[in-house]
């Protein structure tokens, strides 16, 4: 129970700390670049995920690992 409260407090403090960081809307030119998107090459990311999904025990994390295939 104590652990849960601690976890919630951590998450809340983490989110509230976020309000102190960031930029004004007119300062987002660099972050708006294609290569600064979180997944900047979605097709490549999908192909990589498929390879690692079929060769390793872990998958997903960045997004959903989704359904399987006969390869795993």
């Amino acid at each position, binding site marked *: 129970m104590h652990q849960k409260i601690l976890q919630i407090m951590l998450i809340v403090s*983490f*989110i509230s700390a*976020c*309000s102190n*960081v*960031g*930029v*004004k*809307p007119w*300062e*987002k030119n*660099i*972050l708006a*670049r*294609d*290569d*600064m998107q*979180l997944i*900047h*090459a*979605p*097709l*490549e990311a*999908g*192909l990589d995920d*498929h*390879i*690692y999904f079929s*060769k*390793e*025990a*872990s998958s*997903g*994390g*960045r*997004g*959903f*690992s*989704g*359904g*399987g*295939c*006969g*390869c*795993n």
Partner: protein
Amino acid sequence: MQLNTEVRDKTKDKSRFQKISPALAIASIGILGANETLAKDELDRWDFDTAVLLYAEADDRVSAVEPVFSATRAFDNGETLNIKLAYDTLTGASPNGATPSKQKQIFTRPSGKGKSTIASGESPLDDTFKDSRVALALNWTAPINREWEYSTGLYGSKEFDYLSLGGNASIKHYFNQKNSAINFGISFSSDQVEPKGGTPIALAEMAHKSDDDFKDTHKKTREDDSNSKTIQEGMIGLTQVINRQTIMQFNAGFSYTSGYLTDPFKLLSVIGSDKSDSDYGANFQDTNSNNIYLYEARPDSKLRHSFYWQTKYSVSNGDMIDSSYRFMIDDWGINSHTLDFRYRWYFTLNKERDSYLEPHLRYYSQSAADFYQRYIDSDDYQLGDPNFSFASADERLSDMNAVTLGLKYGWRYQEGKEVNIKLEYYSQSHSGKKGIGSLSNQELYPGTKAVMLAIGYSF
């Protein structure tokens, strides 16, 4: 009467037509022009992304070819529709789980038709590994208002013996002047596997073609039903702008899989473990002097938790760094750590129209599943009455370290248009319990090495 009038007016109409025709021609050009503009406008709303991946493992093991096509349409109110189509073909041989042996080994093919012979000292491979898969995914993302956005998706893939269908939905809330976003998502998939020749019964002994009553003994190792599994996933994510050059993503998620999670093509060798016996370290044999191999068995559920942290940073000269760390833990006893690092080095300062080189380094490490065993001791096998419920020799469930080294070259010849090529080398090493007796001379953990080449074109 009407007909007569038509005949009478024919000549008149002809000359009238001759007069009108240039006007019609001009008008039609106008219409065609308008259609062309419409078509061009429509095309401008679409982004296309294509790629093909070639994957080849060393020693003539698995090789794969996977072309992918993705199209995204942007709508006026900020909605986007993405359609993704992938096709892949796999050929080659994959480890069947049994250990190499000082003697030659004979395996019944998974379908029950035919057998394969493995020379002494060689890694037993299942050479019937051949499949093609087609997958289609649709995704729709739309804003609800200035601060909320939702996304839904459908997914389906089909192979010869495997079908997977799924859907997902998520909702995203922007706050703190859109410097922060919190995302909640759920996903559900349902998979169906129908192995050719039926599904092996967990821990049943593989029947040998040389047995007199092979048909009967083989049949006794099989159940006819198709097998299914469901995958439920949930995720909470936080995206945070740190400063003008840095953005971070944190995800925490779970995935619960239940149903048939066993690999129907994997076997385990039973090895003589009695030190005083002459077959110490050799394949344990049945009364017909055939090696005993068992079909593997995995639990029928798996609960996994994941944590993911990604940071993207734009260096002051405009180069880009993308790094991430992922931790996963599941109730099969597997913990994994994944570190990924990419550095995009631009040749000039114009980021929208430039060439770049992108080195890539990935490190992956996992601990073995609790029930992973490279082989089974005959003591544990207890003459057909094993003292365990689950066992697998699938190298993907073993202690593993893997490294990927890659280099990508991209050429952005116009804004939003790019051609790229990526070459990567992937190396896996496994470890686990050592061989006993004569088995200690065999290579039980040969590892996997692969080369990947991907060519991409976005327009």
